[in-house]
């Protein structure tokens, strides 16, 4: 019953599915034609991290690094510290861990050091304000926390976050079909090792667009100083729109050399508007997280209204079927309506956290 995949894409969610389903996974043809074939350092780093949070995981990497075999153990959790490679931000490592952590033996207290915000992965701000609240309807909320102790911008990083996650016996079934209306917008503009004025300028620019919609807009300027501000300069703006039914949509933009902070803010704001326009109950970046939790729910029908699946989501749905044998029913929300939103419904597999200790 080995899962078998090829290619380096979708590496993270495939590992997560393998570990949760307990099936061995084999991934081959990892960048075979590349000048630098095989696993990248961050992928190896992820495997290391997985080895740390699990017990009994066997990872075999081929000589060329183009194929791996992972035989999952149990997710043990507990206090873990890990130094992330500087090629990817902390978000790259946190995302799969968030999927695994609720099913570990002991509550996870993971300290990650490295880059906290970059343009490839979710920044720690978004993970704290958007990703973690997405777990709340599944009954994972108590003592779920991400503490940003230090910020670190690329290229050198130097940030530090502490991720605390409780354990659950079983996730609740989701029934989230009313997206509601946007009632508030929150944002965090942070700037490290640059003038604090930068964050104010970003806030100003973002407000110029958003003020027309609702009055309830708070954009915080979050400035870290000294030791807590990491090793490299940088700034970013992350925005979260919350609806009346607490559906969250988010967007962010990260500083780029030669671009004014106003433009960065405009980029973030427009991305948020695009996200809001897409609609649904779940943000596009968090589709696979929500879908995974729906699959793992009790043996009942879970429903969620979302926008069209992204590429990653499409592949994720296919991989879920391989790992858990479950498919989703995906239908347009309203056949008469022209909105592109879809209703995803699935029958949970009744996943029970077997790692949990009773006594």
């Amino acid at each position: 019953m080995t899962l078998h995949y090829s290619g380096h894409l979708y590496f993270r969610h495939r590992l997560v599915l393998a570990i949760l389903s307990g099936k061995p996974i084999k991934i081959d043809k990892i960048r075979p034609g590349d000048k630098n074939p095989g696993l990248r350092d961050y992928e190896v780093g992820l495997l290391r991290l997985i080895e740390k949070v699990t017990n009994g995981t066997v990872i075999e990497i081929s000589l060329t690094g183009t194929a791996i075999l992972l035989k999952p153990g149990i997710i043990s959790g507990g206090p873990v510290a890990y130094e992330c490679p500087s090629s990817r931000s902390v978000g790259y490592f946190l995302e799969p861990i968030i999927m695994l952590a609720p099913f570990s033996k002991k509550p996870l207290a993971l300290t990650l050091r490295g880059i906290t915000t970059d343009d490839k992965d979710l920044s720690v701000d978004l993970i704290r304000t958007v990703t973690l609240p997405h777990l709340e309807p599944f009954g994972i909320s108590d003592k779920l926390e991400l503490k940003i102790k230090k910020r670190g911008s690329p290229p050198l990083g130097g940030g530090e976050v502490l991720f605390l996650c409780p354990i659950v016996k079983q996730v609740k079934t989701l029934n989230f079909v009313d997206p509601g209306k946007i009632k508030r917008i929150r944002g965090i503009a942070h700037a490290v090792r640059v003038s604090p004025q930068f964050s104010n300028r970003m806030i100003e620019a973002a407000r110029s667009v958003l003020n027309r919609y609702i009055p309830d807009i708070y954009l915080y300027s979050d400035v870290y100083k000294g030791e807590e501000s990491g090793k490299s300069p940088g700034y970013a703006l992350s925005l979260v729109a919350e609806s009346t039914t607490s559906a969250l949509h988010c967007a962010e933009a990260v500083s780029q050399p030669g671009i004014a902070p106003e433009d960065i803010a405009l980029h973030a704001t427009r991305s948020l508007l695009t996200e809001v326009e897409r609609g649904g109950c779940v943000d596009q970046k968090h589709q696979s997280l929500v879908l995974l939790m729906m699959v793992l729910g009790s043996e009942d029908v879970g429903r969620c209204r979302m926008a069209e699946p992204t590429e990653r989501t499409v592949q994720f749905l296919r991989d879920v079927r391989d790992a858990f044998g479950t498919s989703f029913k995906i239908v347009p929300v309203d056949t008469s309506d022209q909105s592109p939103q879809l209703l995803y419904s699935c029958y949970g597999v009744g996943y029970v956290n077997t790692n949990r200790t009773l006594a």
Partner: protein
Amino acid sequence: MSDQRPSKAHQPSRSGKKAEKKARGKGKHNAFNDKAFAPRSGRRAERQGRRAAERDQTRLHVPLVDRTPDDVPPPVIVAIVGPPGVGKSTLVKSLVRRYTKQTLNDIRGPVTVISGKKRRLTFIECNTDLSSMIDIGKIADLVLLMIDGSFGFEMETFEFLNILQAHGFPKVIGVLTHLDLIKKATTLRATKKTLKKRFWAEIYQGAKLFYLSGVLNGRYPDSEILNLSRFISVMKFRPLVFRNAHPYLLADRFEDLTSREQIRLSKGKCDRTVTVYGYLRGTNLREGTKVHVPGVGDLDINTITLLGDPCPFPTAESEKRRKLSEKKTLLVHAPMSDVGGVTYDKDAVWVNVPGSFTRGNRDVPQGEGEQMVMDLQDVNETLEHAVARSQIRLLGSSSKSLSLYPPSNQHTPSHQGSEVEDEGQKAQELTSISDDGSDIGDEELQYDEDENVELHFTGRSTRRVSRRPADRLSEIHDGTGIDYAESDSDLGEDGNEGTLMASDLDRGSDPVLQTDNEEADDEFPKWKSNLSDQVNAFKLAQRNKRKDWTKLIYYSALSPRQIMQGELNASDRKKDEEKDDNDDFFTLKATDGDVDSLDTTKEKCPPNQLAKWATEETLDSIRHLFITGLSDTIPADDASGRDVATNDDVFDEDERTNSDNEGDTPRKADDADPQATTLAAKKEALKRKFDEQYDDPDSTKQDFYAEAKEAISAQQALNRAEFANVDIATRILVEGYQPGSYVRIELNSVPCEMSEHFDPSRPLVIGGLLSAEEQFGFVQYTPEHMHCYATFYGPISAPNTGFCALNSLEDGIAAFRIAATGVVLDIDRSVKIVKKLKLTGVPYKIFKNTAFVKDMFSSALEVAKFEGANLRTVSGIRGQVKKALPKPDGAFRATFEDKVLMSDIIFLRAWYSIQPRKFYNPVTSLLLSSGSGWMGMRLTGQVRREQNLSVPHNRDSAYKPIVRPSRRFNPLKAIIPSEACRIARTRREEGFGGDAANASTAKGCYSAETREKKGAR
């Protein structure tokens, strides 16, 4: 005639004795006086009220979800358990007779009957061996626990109850039999009473116990059985947690599908492909689930097929159609027991002759047909032999038969088997029986262009109750490939005239069509089978603009990127790919050109997509998504507003054409409708808000119990509603096979012993494994009510799963065989178990806080290993190992927090870790023949006892008498205080202190405290 006349209503008498009697009785409502039970005091009333409330609470149980569907639940498994000779078979027969009005002589395996509108029962008799009892404990919903009244309880009964306890304790009804053997009425009464008391102690106070008197006509008295059946029919079942989380199935039929040739070649030792049939229970069974068969091991499911219900519930329709004559033959499903009618299905044909005809029953006259069928069942020879004996005539008119071997054994059997192997090395056998038994030569030989040579026998083809590969069977069932049964006479004629049929050609021409049939291709998962259709449908969907995401994701071979880009012309390219590799659709193609793309969550927003937000128009277009925007019913933006308007227009047009003559009233109503509904909705919301605020807030609030139950029922209603009008294939894809459905499960690579030693009297349970349970690890469990942990290596099962441990499964052990029961506490991949180990030593030289310790270690190397280790003396002084000393071997220097005494024993607390062996050996009781019991590995002690060996004796670990040198204590010398000291003390007590006090200590004068002085005296 009498039916049509209206019956006269009853007229009660208004006068006379009867009326008087009734009038007298009207005064009292109850048999007892109400006042008699009224509380006399307030305190008593309070106590009574409290008691009533407490009793109310005992009725409540933790709300549990029942996963079995309400409409078609699986049959309730009623297991009949008891020691040998207690009358189990008689009870099953009596019960089956009660429900079906048929007497079954030879009951083997489960028997399913219909007991009511909404209930079916599966009776299964339990063997007396322990593994069968455990298997029954896993699946039984209701246990009829039979006890021999004349003998009393037996050890098996207690063992079984203990097994039940570990498995969640299904419902138990006790049945006392052989009560007719007790002649004296008083003894009978006393026996009943004692047995009942014991039974209640085992289960619960008030557990139901039935008494069955003697046997009449090989059955228990009908009235008693009727009574028992009534109890069974009203029995309510609480879902058991484990069964509510796992799919499982009690196989009521078992077939071996391995090709005979393969079995012959491997001399019966090859792994088999088998099918099992049964009602699904527990939760939904999904494709790709691994199953565990207790007594065999973990197996992979090849395919699952949904079959028609062999024992369907009576519907209003079926009841109407039922004739009076059918009343006698009520439905009973017991494939292993030779009852019921003829059943055709995928694997075999079941010929069952009605009446009391059973196989092996020679009393009933058997006709020619029956005889033939019986002979067919007995066919046991190889294909080779059959060919050797068969006659082939090339044409119907030819006088001489073709023969491969010299015609030595020319007598024609009533059936003929023949085979010609095709190039694919496949053999197929079709036995034929001619209509009247005289004309056997209705065969025809077919030669195909592609050199496939197949022999077709026509005539009435009755397939032997045979074991044949599934793909062959499906071909037959398709009816496309092989001419079968219905067209036999025509073909026979043709054959006689020497026509060559080329039906294989037809088959070759439409390979796609064949795959349409779900069952046609067992090699592939179901979703892959009708791919071409799906591709067509996909194209259609593309044309229809809106994407069908389910199909795109699950059926198409497009890569995610292609799906996102809506690449239409990709379908051509895809076709080529399809030809190459049909198998792995989900492998990623490197040609997608995303070698350098990263695995990122944040999708890059292209700038041109964001540029649209520069205009005010687009910015305004999403205003309605914010709370400050206008409501949905009156859309703010023009575009959608226009849409609604046009829709309305279209609707109006339709309306006009449809109902021109009806006038304008409906139109008006339509116009008013949206506004009216919104208004009504608003009013409703306002009213609710008002009610909430002004009504008693507690009145609407439910207690926890009701709330939880309501949430469960709401979720179940949602579950039903969500997939109510989805076609069955999608449903199976999404939610799997529902409990209550009758399925056929094909299992691959089953050990041959299972099919060879298959015995229907042993229950065959197929249990689905959850994803975590496929793994192995260390399982920690604890016996209940005892502080005892144990750890072993084995398949992982979720915490809180019950278990029972046995020392041996052997029969004929008088003692209680269940060693322990308990629950799983924890699972892990590695486990640390340590033994406490204390090393002791004695000081041989003591300085202030330092001591030299000997006799703890034997060498300096050992000491080096323990440097820094914590030490303790018996008196509780803590210390540390410092460094080894050169002179006596193993001696070391240690420091302590205080000065130790020479008499102290110093010990070092250490832990010795033990690694439990990774040894797991499943009980394979179903792989053994019925008589032989499963034997586990013998324990060391057992081996020694049998071999008559003594326990190896280590001289070091022998207990020797402890010799402690008698210790000499110096006598305590009391010093008589001198005069100077006395003065000094007096001065100190008087508060002078100073020099005098110092002087006394300086002199070394002993000043004893009062306590010490007392001791000295």
